């Protein structure tokens, strides 16, 4: 299937809001939905990825150094305490570099989908906590993430159709 053809609907937005407010446990109730078919799962995961990108771009704008990315991931792992081993440093730095269009790491980054998902979730929730949104701020962030995801999917869909 063409994953970029998925549509972001109200259910996805509600799920993202719950995720940002309550953490990954909010998605336990979505387990059946996430396992229904690839297209349904792709809707949720695309919006999560979009939110990650928006959060990272906000966090590292207007300027940053690669040293800032190194320090950010280290602080994230320190705060994660006993979960630090769930966050692979190189995977996390690579995801952030991609999100802000920084030069890629020259090292071989582990190709591990689970590690990438862990890093994505920890980074997103860390930045959201750090941002300390009020109600309006959170809604603005979700709206920005939704718009970003729809545009990103449209670009990918157009490329897939070529």
């Amino acid at each position: 299937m063409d994953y970029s053809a998925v549509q972001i609907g109200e259910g996805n937005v509600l799920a993202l809001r719950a995720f940002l407010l309550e953490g990954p446990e909010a998605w336990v109730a979505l387990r059946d939905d996430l396992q229904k078919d690839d297209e349904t799962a792709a809707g949720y995961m695309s919006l999560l990825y979009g939110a990650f990108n928006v959060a990272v771009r906000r966090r590292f704008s207007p300027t940053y150094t690669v040293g800032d990315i190194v320090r950010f991931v280290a602080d994230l792992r320190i705060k994660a305490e006993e979960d630090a081993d769930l966050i692979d440093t190189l995977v996390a730095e690579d995801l952030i570099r991609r999100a802000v269009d920084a030069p890629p790491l020259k090292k071989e980054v582990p190709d591990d989908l689970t590690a990438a998902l862990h890093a994505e979730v920890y980074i997103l929730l860390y930045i959201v906590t750090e941002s300390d949104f009020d109600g309006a701020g959170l809604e603005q962030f979700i709206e920005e993430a939704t718009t970003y995801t729809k545009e990103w999917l449209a670009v990918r869909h157009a490329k897939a159709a070529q």
Partner: protein
Amino acid sequence: MQVTDRQLATLRSQLAGRTAEEHLRLFNQLGESDNAGYAALLAAGLFEAIQRRFAKSNHASQQTEIIDFIAASRERSEEAPDAIDPNIAEQIILHALGKGTIAGIDGKAVIRHQIMLLAALTAQARYNEEELDAFLSQVRADAEEMLE
């Protein structure tokens, strides 16, 4: 087998923050016969430096200090994040503290990281000449014991 004065002087030139040229000049004077001695010096030096820096902390603050130390070594320049692999650096430090293994890591990568980590730990320790000599004297004795 003994560690030679020349091997020790080479390591000292690096750890004392001498110019890269001087360290390279001394390093280039080492021959193949120096490999075992110099490798033992590096290994013993890093082991001792890790013990001094991290061994006193409890498990939780040890983890924080290791992550923080590696980040401090990697955030200094544009090249450092690529030069030092954080996963390898962490495994080497934990291994010296009796946790985990470095068996799966390429030998050349281990030596490269031993050199960088030892230099970084020694720089952070800010030894004066006398303290550095005392550190190296202990490292030499440990290395010679390893070579026996």
